[in-house]
């Protein structure tokens, strides 16, 4: 029997069709239909000035909207061969980590909703709201922040903002561990999470899984390590695990939240004085930049004539992760319930995923995957 999940389904917050091939309760294989959210934003961006483009880029995805603007700005900075002022770089780290926290909390809450543990779902959202407050306080908006510009960030912060963010983070830190314990040690939650949806290291490499999904399968790969701001100024360690199942993916996200909180504290402690924005003259040229989004790595490649965006291509992490999910995790799963929770554990972001649709002559649409793309993994 083919069991269609979605596009409108209680456990999906974004439209997507998951076709589960089932035999009784056992899921044999899965197939994923994309295309419900494809809006062609890259084509909208073409021919616009970068000032407009940066607002469009954050509408690629609403959950990780921040990292898109940062990558967009940093691509342009790379084309210009300059960097934002140090204070701006620090503020970018601050916002990025706040965004990562809220995204991971949302991802885990979705997972808990899918295993129908509503209490933890609510607790995750309860933890998430203050973080959203912090983001709103800092940037002026909850979701699409409009905070980055090429050459820095828009607004400066003052001490009172930093104090309230510090307060929120301290409170979060004091409460956070308890809820992690509930997930970590709860036997019933464990029953649903341990050894479900395995993605081995080889499979992860084959499917090019990135982000927490790859890291939970033993791929120590975090682009923040290579980012100049993190490299020069911050001290953090890459979280990765070897257990490869749903539990590992969620735990990995929880641990990353802890790491992000440490980073935020470092930012607040070491925030340098100075300008938050500088004028950057952008020459014509082509540039590419990769950043670690909450879900993995996001790549922007932009060709510009100095002012207008001539060509832009965005590559987001979810496409590989969902692919890994459909190909490897959802093969021979014991029950439909587990299949859906496995899907949720991948933290799919459909709005991110639906980037390029190539329509061939027969009118069939398919997802375009960059064939020559290489990933650098450190496997240990």
């Amino acid at each position, binding site marked *: 029997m083919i069991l269609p999940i979605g*596009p*409108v*389904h*209680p*456990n*999906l*917050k*974004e*439209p997507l069709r998951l076709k589960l091939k089932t035999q009784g309760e056992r899921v044999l294989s899965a197939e994923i239909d994309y*295309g*419900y*959210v*494809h*809006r*062609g*934003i*890259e*084509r*909208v*961006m*073409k021919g616009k000035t970068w000032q407009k483009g940066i*607002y*469009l880029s*954050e*509408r*690629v*995805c*609403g*959950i990780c*909207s921040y990292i898109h603007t940062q990558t967009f700005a940093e691509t342009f900075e790379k084309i210009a061969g300059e960097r934002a002022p140090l204070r701006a770089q620090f503020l970018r780290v601050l916002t990025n980590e706040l965004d990562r926290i809220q995204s991971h909390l*949302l991802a885990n*809450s979705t997972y808990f909703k899918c295993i129908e543990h509503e209490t933890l779902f*609510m607790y995750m*959202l*309860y933890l*998430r*709201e203050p973080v*959203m407050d912090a983001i709103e306080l800092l940037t002026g908006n*909850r*979701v*699409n922040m409009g905070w980055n510009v090429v050459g820095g960030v828009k607004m400066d912060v003052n001490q009172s903002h930093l104090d309230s963010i510090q307060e929120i983070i301290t409170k979060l830190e004091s409460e956070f561990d308890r809820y992690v314990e509930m997930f970590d040690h709860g036997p019933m939650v464990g029953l649903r999470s341990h050894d479900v949806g395995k993605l081995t290291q080889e499979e992860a490499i084959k499917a090019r899984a990135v982000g927490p999904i790859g890291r939970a399968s033993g791929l120590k790969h975090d682009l923040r390590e290579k980012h100049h701001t993190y490299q020069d100024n911050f001290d953090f360690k890459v979280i990765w695990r070897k257990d490869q199942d749903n539990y590992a993916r969620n735990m990995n996200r929880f641990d990353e939240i802890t790491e992000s909180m440490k980073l935020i504290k470092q930012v607040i402690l070491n925030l340098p004085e100075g300008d938050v924005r500088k004028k950057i003259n952008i020459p014509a040229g082509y540039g590419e930049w990769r950043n670690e989004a909450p879900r993995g790595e996001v790549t922007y490649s932009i060709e510009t004539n100095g002012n207008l965006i001539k060509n832009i291509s965005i590559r987001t992490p979810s496409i590989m992760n969902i692919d890994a999910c459909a190909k490897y995790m959802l093969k021979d799963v014991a029950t439909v319930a587990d299949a859906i929770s496995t899907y949720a554990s991948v933290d799919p*972001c*459909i*709005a991110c995923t639906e980037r390029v649709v190539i329509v061939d002559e027969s009118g069939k649409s398919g997802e375009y995957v960059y064939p020559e793309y290489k990933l650098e993994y450190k496997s240990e």
Partner: protein
Amino acid sequence: MLDGLKDIIRKSSIHVCLVSTGGCNGCDIEVVALLSPRYDLEQYGIYVTNNPREADVVLVTGAVTEQWRDKLERIFAKVPDPKIVVAIGNCPLSGDVFNQEGGSVYAPVSDYIPVDAEVSGCPPRPTEILAAILSAGPDAIAAKGRQKV
């Protein structure tokens, strides 16, 4: 008298089906945030079940993409009467930034299904959604219920 009773029941018990027809999903997660303990949509008797078969309110978030053009109408047809449609965010209202040259969206939603209430913003804050739903939703659904005999 009977109408009054029906109104009361319709106003105080609302099932919601969230249909995301292609946006940046910022609005979707703001609706999810509405379920959080801070806002708690359920205390107003509004349950987000995402099952069109039992829904009273269809929350549409998103400019209509190619795939949704026929599916949106089909989902709307599945919802039993009386039903209302609330458009959340700018995407269903005007197509937002996607509705320009190059974008493949077919906004607004009102071209496909009748929209009863709208919340603008990109995305609107949860409180804005909440206030709009509470001020417009129950009355609209009660009025819809009276039209159909």
